[in-house]
């Protein structure tokens, strides 16, 4: 040992076994017959099988539990074709019976593993395979926690809590996609901005809980008028809704606006402090057209809604996408 010079290369300075056993990953070498030639400490620790019980034995028989068929196929392929193989955590999860801890009388779940198998020649010219195993468990656990949170968030992210229809956030994203699509394929969209008339005074008179009930009821009523999967209704603001419907011409869209208005009118929900009629009504601003650059359908529908309010409420106003102002009296 004393004749090793200070300038010795790594191969002379260190013994393979010491390095292999110090690694924080699993290392197994098998020969062309599937016999184990190397079995490092990490593998011994996480399989519960000592090196002495593994060396020179058939790989499959060393483990007391079955090894996954995909792993065995991968190993066979590497031995035959001499090409490196990856076994990803996501697709294989736990190919080898390895565990993070062995607790007495307790069945632990197998460790999630990330494995590569590469061909390697021994100094005796044997065609062998080097199996490297790393532990992906901690990342998976962290991701699992994140995932269950994000699943909850996702649902919250797209649905309005009170009415159970889509929320503003969802609508904004959906609107962008739909407009882009309609622009590209040149088909018309109809955007309806809908507002419950004199809602603030309803809240003031009947209370907020009743107000919430009205919002829910109006949302349900509006939604029940829709029949196509492409028609999306969302809660845009407090008492404001937005509806987007593709492939309708202006006339049909206006007929539909009339239908929505009547549906809410016919609910006959008393609203004493309404300055229009003594029941809950809605105003609708409608814009129909093929989306164009620099023309916002939402803005135009909003303008139409404003006009509907100005003209006395419980009505719809329809504006085309472009500059010319044409609108129908209710």
């Amino acid at each position, binding site marked *: 040992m004393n004749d090793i010079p200070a300038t010795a290369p790594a191969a002379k300075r260190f013994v393979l076994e010491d390095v292999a056993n110090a690694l924080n990953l699993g290392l197994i070498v098998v020969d062309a017959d599937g016999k184990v030639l190397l079995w490092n400490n990490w593998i011994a620790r996480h399989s519960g099988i000592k090196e002495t019980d593994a060396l020179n034995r058939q790989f499959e028989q060393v483990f007391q539990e079955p090894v996954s068929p*995909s792993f065995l196929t991968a190993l066979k392929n590497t031995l035959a*074709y*001499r090409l490196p193989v990856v076994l990803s*955590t996501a*697709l*294989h999860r736990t190919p080898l019976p390895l565990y993070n801890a062995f607790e007495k009388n307790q069945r632990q779940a197998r460790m999630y593993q990330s494995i590569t198998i590469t061909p390697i020649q021994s100094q005796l010219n044997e065609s062998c395979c080097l199996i490297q195993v790393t532990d992906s468990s901690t990342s998976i656990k962290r991701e699992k926690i994140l995932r269950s949170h994000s699943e909850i968030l996702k649902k919250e992210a797209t649905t309005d809590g009170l009415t159970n229809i889509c929320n503003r956030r969802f609508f904004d994203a959906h609107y962008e996609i739909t407009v882009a699509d309609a622009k590209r394929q040149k088909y018309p969209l109809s955007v309806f901005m809908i507002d419950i008339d004199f809602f603030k005074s309803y809240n003031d008179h009947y209370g907020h809980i009743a107000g919430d009930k009205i919002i829910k009821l109006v949302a349900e009523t509006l939604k029940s008028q829709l029949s196509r999967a492409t028609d999306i209704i969302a809660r845009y603001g407090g008492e404001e809704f937005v509806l987007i419907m593709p492939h309708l011409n202006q006339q049909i869209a206006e007929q539909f606006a009339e239908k929505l208005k009547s549906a809410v009118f016919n609910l006959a929900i008393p609203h004493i402090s309404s300055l229009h009629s003594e029941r809950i009504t809605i105003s609708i601003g409608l814009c129909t057209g093929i989306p164009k650059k620099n023309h916002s359908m939402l803005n135009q529908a909003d303008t139409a809604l404003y006009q509907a309010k100005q003209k006395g409420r419980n009505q719809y106003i329809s504006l085309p996408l472009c500059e010319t102002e044409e609108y129908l009296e209710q």
Partner: protein
Amino acid sequence: MNQLNELHIDALVEIFSIGAGRAALSLSEIVSDEVRISVPSVQVISTKNINSTSLSLSCGPFGAVTQHFSGPFNAETVLLFNEEQALKIVSDMMGSQMSLGELAQFEHEAMCELGNIILNACLSAMADVLNFTLESSLPHYTVASADEILHRLKKNANQPYVLVLHIDLAIEKRSTAGNLVFLLSSTSLTNLVHHIDHFLSNFA
């Protein structure tokens, strides 16, 4: 490219179809469902003539799995898929609990494996039929835009030829198409042709 005639191309299509069949078998064992992979066409293009059409690089970004093969010829091989589609396939393969956008690192590793299975199957079919031995580096996964890919393909003057295979892949009712690109030096292309000629001479 004049070195590869119709019969050479036919032989390559047949060889890669065998590779595709093997890859499909491996993948079907992982997903326990039928997998369809086919290689409808093979082309040799000189690197300076490559553009986005020859590689069907319409809508990026792209997931690229790269392996470097060496042996009687050296080739950097790149399997290219539209990233979003490929991630959807991989996410289907992982099972319904994990969705797109989550577990990005695991999706990348799974893409690596998907690419590795296809590349290994195609190259080992070549090695089997044409009777030679190949070595390879481990697969490496990156995401790149069409421009970045074209730039990478064209920058190396030592690899004036590109062998492009079109691949159709259908797993779990989701189908996508991609390209397998071999970057070859002139010597490599000549060696490849030589091996194909040798193989064909037994059957003329």
